[in-house]
């Protein structure tokens, strides 16, 4: 099983680096490992917006443009939306690409 590392920065600045499975989402990797602050209530169905993260600016271009649904959901997240806001259930881990995300201070 190929793995890669996701670095989760908490609102207070701590960083949790988690070895995740390629193909899993950033949300699932967080939930599995008990990373506080990423809830993922709907399990990645684009129904809850409790998996909001800020993705490192230089890693944004790795992913295709978000679809309309994610865009609309991001307008309603608990913490303010920023230019680098994404729903982490829509970000999959890829071989050889570490990720850096910051967790917002609220999800619901």
């Amino acid at each position: 099983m190929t793995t890669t590392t996701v670095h989760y920065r908490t609102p207070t600045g701590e960083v949790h680096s988690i070895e995740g499975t390629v193909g899993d989402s950033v949300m699932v990797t967080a939930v599995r490992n008990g990373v506080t602050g990423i809830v993922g209530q709907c399990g990645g169905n684009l129904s809850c917006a409790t998996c909001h993260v800020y993705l490192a600016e230089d890693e944004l271009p790795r992913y295709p443009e978000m679809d309309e649904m994610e865009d609309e959901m991001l307008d309603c997240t608990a913490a303010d939306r920023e230019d680098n806001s994404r729903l982490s259930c829509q970000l999959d881990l890829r071989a050889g690409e570490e990720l850096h995300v910051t967790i917002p201070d609220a999800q619901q």
Partner: protein
Amino acid sequence: MSGAERLLVVGAGQAAADLVTGLVEAGYPGRITVVGAEPHPPYQRPPLSKGYLDDGVAEVTLRAEHYYAEHGVHMMLGDPVVALTPGRDGSGTARCASGGVVEYDRLVLATGAVPRRPAELDGVAGVHVLRTIEDADGLRPELRPGRHLVVLGAGFVGLEVAAAARGLGCTVTVVEVADRILGRVLDPVLAEHVAGLHRADGITVHTGRTVAEWLIADGRVRGVRLGDGTEIGLDVLVLGIGAAPCTGPARSLGLRCDPGVLVDAGQVASDGHTLAIGDCADGPDRSPAGDPTRRVRLESVDHAASSARVAVATLLGREVPAVPPPWFWSDQGRVRIQVVGLPRPGDRAVLRRPGDADALVVGHFRHGQLVAVGAVNAPGDFMGLRKALTHRVPITPDELRDPQLRPAKLVAQRLRSRKSNAAT
């Protein structure tokens, strides 16, 4: 009590996982043991009636097993609690099927619910309910193209299975006793809209029909005869007629149940000590403009999470937190339903047509105040209106109705001006 409090959680599902996580994050000083009847660590059920039926690979586990070990949580899985013996002040002893005994100082019941199933169908092949991974694994190979699936009960789980099976190429018939689908939870106009979308996808939906007889041959269900005499032949029968809360352990302690374990605003049961959370617990109505003296049954991931959050506060002796308005979602093929709040008969229903023909939103107003929202294929509108309810941002019927107004924008504006007003 000497040493750390020994906390026992009975049931290892969604609510138990949320409780354990909450306790770990809050630095709960006691020792936690979780006893679960199923052999799996807590997992998500929603995918079982959706993506999992399709590919069987959807990941459903919540926390990885190492999470519990790392935080000193003792998991005893595949070993149901068969008897509870009360001691003093909420303490007691649990006996498991294996003969194992667990002594506890404090108890949380998180036993969930089990699907209803008529006794005359016991042991009959071709009959399925859907609650566990094993249920889904048993149903999946039956849903082959061209086979005829009959779903009894047009609730959320039933309709999700119907839509998934249709997507897999089955012929699908849904039989509902009430005169409309999703009667318990959805506004009639919205429910009719959903029925229309399913019919357009080729699902046959019969409402107002009862099953008079099961047609069984050679130990396998072959059909049903309806109350009006119609016979429907079938290959697979799925029962989606609701779930009954698992209250055996609660009753053995003498706790009041009706039908779920009755709990107060802190999730505490009638003995004043034991807590109950998730699907097995009937708690006060905490919905917007709800009546907290009324007990409600909520079976949703959100309720598991909210009730667990409240229980964490109770166990730590902290003030009970405010919980956001109850909500849930249901994905039925291309039909995406989201509901927040608890609509009641007598509320004024206001329709919103967001433009897309498949989308429809209903706002429920009580004494002029928005109290609940149901949405089909309108996640953006839904999230905006849900945020309005969470933050008590007023929305008028005219604003809700106006397809040009985006709820998310309106709510953001009002929250901003509220903030700046508070600052001045």
